[in-house]
């Protein structure tokens, strides 16, 4: 309540100051009057009595001043006065002010931008009801090779889990897939999430229109075909028409009734990020749902309020054994499956992205530190030049506290101006970030970007938390880097400062402090330069990596046949016709088909996954040690279209079709690994994929292609003729003579004349896909380089500032030396030598720091040692050159000093 009274009194002070002051005056006057009256009664003469009364009060004005001191309002007055004075002195030195504000804006702005990334990716609570009570539950699959891995659930296993557990309040399955939307308008390939009815209540999500799924709609297989749309799809495809509720739409050629629209903010948990629509798990038939070994769904569960996370985890481990017993692994030799649960929070961001976010945050805080050091430098230098002004203020009665307060107000004003300017920089950076989307872009259309990662990446924005962060940094900067100069200025001896020339006495001591700042700046800049240098070299290595294909002038797009009937021959025939028609387009050199493209990324599964390879002529390797090959289904012309060289044997031909003898082409790595020193042509292998399990003949060897991430060496691959094992999704490639993008419309037209309802999607040139594969690395490089450049510029400005200041301080001494016959080279050499010492110390410390700090980069570096000597030599040279230049300029100016002028100055 006190605050209320204080505010009232503050308001009175602000709005009715005259009255408040008059009352205080009256009160004190009446006190004197009454006191005097007492004294007169005691026999003192009236005039004397009045004098004594005033004396007793120890001065009317002093008492008023003391009373005012307690008033909030009066404090406000002092503040306003400080602000006015500060503003005047800042605008008087607009150049100085501008440099500081820009320095701070760059430092703080970059930090705010990176902070909003950190906040979204690592800090902000997930946008679900009580997110800390949510757990991700996994099955554990014993691995062929190393440790068991987390995998998804089959429906029967989930039922066992659900019926036997006691620690979770509720649980829900979810899985993402792509689905064809047909009917009115252009057919589309959409991302759908297949979920339990309990999914939405579990996460605390309600429909903005209509409703979410009813338990009854997710209880009996193939009974309810209902769907919920995302806000985005609703607006884009249905023009936000509310009457869409109750209407039916065709998904994979089956009618589904729309029952609800989700709110705009909601994003799926499942792989790949934002889903377009949701369907219930029980749309599937009972056969699919009854397969215990079809591990399709992820599981999210909410722990009961009185259960601790660790309890839920150990309970899940026990449940794993129950599930293992209920569904014994009879078909396979692998035993001891299990289950595990982790807080959902753990999966909010891909670990690789987390790491690069943290590295960037570290780098950007270095930039801020350097900015702060620079600002402190400038403030110190200015504090020194204002010594006389401050001394005068002290001499006419300003208290030390008052002077410090004044100086602090000024540096806070600077910091807040800088902070405000920084918002523009932060805002622009976030905008650029959202356009480039460096993290998301690395994962293409149906790439397996974890849903939560996508969710957190999509939530990067400048919000109130980021603004608070900026404000906090700005104020901290203002206080910390304003305090030292303020204290220093206020400590000065008044008479000393009023005397001219006394500054020089202190120069030595003063320079030591500023010298440390220069050393710190150089060391920090060194570390940033080292990080950037290593990343640049790594990127260079990465970009010169041979992918194994020629990505220029190739267009690619995906085609997926809707799930449904269709013999393998019919599927193959359809794709064959598409390929033939595209190949005959004008400007097309050749066209090919493959189940995956080069640089698919980190998670290769399904179409591009690895399968066990066995050799009938050799003894079978024990389970868990059997070799695997990447398996791709391709058309004969795929190799020609991608310019993958044939090394031995032959390529596929149109004769390698359904029913013909099964054949396989292996890549160079497979040939070398499986048949060292032998010719693989004519050898028999069995690849655990469709009919190829029964055995096939190796007919050719082709060059290696990197299908995984760019930084991973090629794995052994086996190409199968797609007509002998037709997939439902294929990527179509067309090599063109001119710009491949010009082919897009022709391809779309050809596909729609063949099958009107078939979407063709994810059009990209191979060049784009290659760029996507390196976008994250390039982004890291660009940011680190930008930070390093800012750092080196700021450091150079700092050195320049300090050296100019030092030179100015010593103008006198230099003048005398020149009068005594020193040449200007001597003066330059002396100044530069002084700077060199600082530069060398800073470089040495920076080198040591960089050797430690860049270790965190080692996993992000490709074929570059974090201690790469070449990089370090280059950095030392750049940094020393910049620093020497920054100190040479003031030195040269010093050498032009005219002794006759400087000596007359004092």
């Amino acid at each position, binding site marked *: 309540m006190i605050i209320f009274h204080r505010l009232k*009194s503050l308001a009175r002070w602000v709005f009715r100051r005259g009255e408040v002051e008059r009352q205080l005056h009256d009160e*004190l006057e009446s*006190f004197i*009057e*009454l006191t005097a009256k*007492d004294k007169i009664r005691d026999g003192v003469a009236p005039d004397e009595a009045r004098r004594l009364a005033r004396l007793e009060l120890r001065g009317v004005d002093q008492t008023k001043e003391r009373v005012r001191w307690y008033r909030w309002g009066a404090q406000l007055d002092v503040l306003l006065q400080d602000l006015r004075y500060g503003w005047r002195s800042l605008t008087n030195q607009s150049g100085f002010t501008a440099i500081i504000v820009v320095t701070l804006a760059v430092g703080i702005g970059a930090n705010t931008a990176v902070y909003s990334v950190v906040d979204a990716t690592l800090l902000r609570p997930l946008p679900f009801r009580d997110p800390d009570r949510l757990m991700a539950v996994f099955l554990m699959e014993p691995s062929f090779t190393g440790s068991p891995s987390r995998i998804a659930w089959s429906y029967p296993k989930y039922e066992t889990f659900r019926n036997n557990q006691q620690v979770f309040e509720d649980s829900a399955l979810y899985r993402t897939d792509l689905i064809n939307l047909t009917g009115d308008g252009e057919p589309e390939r959409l991302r759908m999430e297949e979920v339990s009815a309990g999914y939405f209540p579990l996460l605390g999500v309600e429909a903005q229109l209509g409703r979410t799924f009813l338990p009854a709609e997710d209880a009996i297989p193939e009974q309810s075909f209902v769907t919920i749309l995302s806000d985005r799809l609703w607006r884009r495809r249905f023009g936000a028409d509310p009457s869409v509720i109750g209407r039916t739409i065709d998904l994979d050629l089956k009618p589904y009734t729309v029952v609800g629209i989700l709110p705009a903010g909601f994003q799926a948990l499942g792989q790949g990020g934002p889903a377009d629509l949701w369907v219930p798990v029980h749309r599937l038939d009972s056969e699919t749902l009854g397969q215990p070994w079809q591990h399709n769904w992820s599981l999210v569960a909410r722990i009961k309020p009185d259960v601790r996370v660790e309890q839920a985890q150990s309970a899940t481990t026990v449940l794993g054994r129950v599930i293992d017993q209920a569904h014994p692994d009879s078909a396979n030799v692998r035993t001891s499956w299990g289950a595990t649960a982790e807080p959902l929070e753990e999966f909010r961001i891909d670990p690789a992205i987390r790491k690069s976010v943290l590295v960037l945050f570290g780098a950007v805080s270095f930039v801020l530190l350097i900015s702060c050091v620079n600002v402190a430098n400038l403030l110190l230098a200015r504090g020194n030049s204002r010594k006389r002004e401050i001394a005068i203020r002290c001499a006419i009665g300003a208290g030390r506290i008052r002077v410090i307060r004044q100086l602090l107000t000024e540096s806070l004003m600077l910091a807040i101006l800088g902070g405000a300017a920084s918002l523009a920089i932060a805002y622009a950076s976030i905008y650029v970030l959202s356009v480039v989307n460096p993290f998301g872009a690395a994962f293409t259309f149906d790439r397996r970007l974890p849903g939560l990662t996508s969710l957190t990446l999509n939530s990067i924005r400048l919000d109130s938390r980021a603004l608070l962060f900026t404000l906090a940094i700005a104020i901290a900067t203002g206080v910390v880097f304003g305090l030292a100069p303020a204290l220093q200025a206020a400590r000065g001896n008044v008479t000393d400062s009023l005397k001219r020339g006394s500054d020089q006495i202190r120069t030595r001591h003063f320079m030591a402090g500023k010298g440390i700042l220069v050393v710190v700046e150089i060391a920090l800049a060194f570390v940033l330069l080292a990080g950037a240098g290593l990343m640049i070299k790594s990127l260079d290595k990465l970009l010169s990596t041979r992918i194994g294909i020629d990505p220029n002038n190739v267009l690619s797009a995906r085609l997926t046949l809707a799930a449904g009937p269709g013999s393998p021959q019919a599927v193959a025939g359809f794709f064959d016709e598409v390929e033939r028609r595209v190949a005959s387009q004008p400007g097309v050199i050749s066209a090919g088909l493959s189940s995956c493209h080069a640089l698919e990324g980190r998670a290769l599964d399904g179409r591009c996954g690895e399968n066990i390879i066995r050799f009938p002529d050799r003894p079978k390797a024990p389970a868990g040690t059997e070799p695997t090959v990447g398996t791709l289904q391709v058309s004969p012309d795929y190799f020609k279209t991608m310019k993958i060289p044939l090394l031995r044997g032959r390529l596929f031909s149109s004769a390698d079709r359904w029913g013909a003898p099964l054949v396989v082409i292996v890549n160079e790595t497979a040939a070398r690994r499986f048949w060292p020193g032998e010719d693989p042509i004519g050898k028999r292998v069995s690849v655990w994929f469709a009919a190829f399990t029964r055995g096939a003949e190796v007919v050719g060897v082709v060059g290696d292609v990197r299908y995984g991430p760019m930084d991973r060496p090629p794995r052994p691959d086996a190409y199968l003729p797609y007509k002998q094992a037709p997939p439902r999704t294929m990527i179509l490639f067309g090599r063109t003579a001119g710009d491949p993008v010009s082919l897009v419309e022709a391809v779309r037209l050809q596909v729609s004349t063949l099958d009107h309802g078939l979407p063709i999607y994810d059009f990209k040139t191979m060049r784009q896909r290659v760029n996507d594969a390196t976008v994250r690395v390039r982004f890291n490089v660009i940011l680190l380089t930008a930070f390093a450049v800012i750092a080196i510029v700021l450091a150079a400005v700092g050195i320049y500032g300090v050296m100019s200041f030092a030179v100015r301080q010593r103008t006198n001494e230099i003048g005398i030396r020149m009068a005594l016959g020193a040449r200007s080279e001597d003066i330059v050499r002396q100044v530069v030598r002084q700077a060199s010492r600082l530069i060398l110390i800073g470089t040495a410390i920076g080198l040591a720091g960089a050797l430690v700090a860049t270790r965190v980069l080692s996993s992000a570096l490709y074929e570059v040692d974090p201690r790469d000597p070449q990089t370090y030599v280059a950095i030392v040279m750049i940094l020393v050159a910049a620093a020497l230049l920054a100190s040479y300029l003031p030195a040269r100016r010093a050498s032009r000093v005219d002794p006759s002028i400087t000596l007359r100055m004092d």
Partner: protein
Amino acid sequence: MPKIDVPQGTLELLILTILNREPMHGHGISQRLSQLTANGFQVNPGSLFPALYKMEQDGKLAAEWRASDNNRNAKYYRLTRTGKKQLERERERWNRVKMLIANVLEGA
């Protein structure tokens, strides 16, 4: 016997106690204090007024202008409810301090 300055931190307690009986103006408070301590305590008006203003600002005292005994307008302070509560708290605290100090002095 020389006058003693009001011990630090007790001025508020003394003001609250005096005003608890009846509203009073600054001069009255100072006189009352001298009376009650038989001139033993001396309160400097230069600290009295800031203390009064601070307490008024914090809502412990309320003030109004009225004519004083000798027909001069004076500012009269009285306790508010917050002030009364404060007085109780301060008094209790003081009693404890007194007791503890006495304990120490006797025990030593």
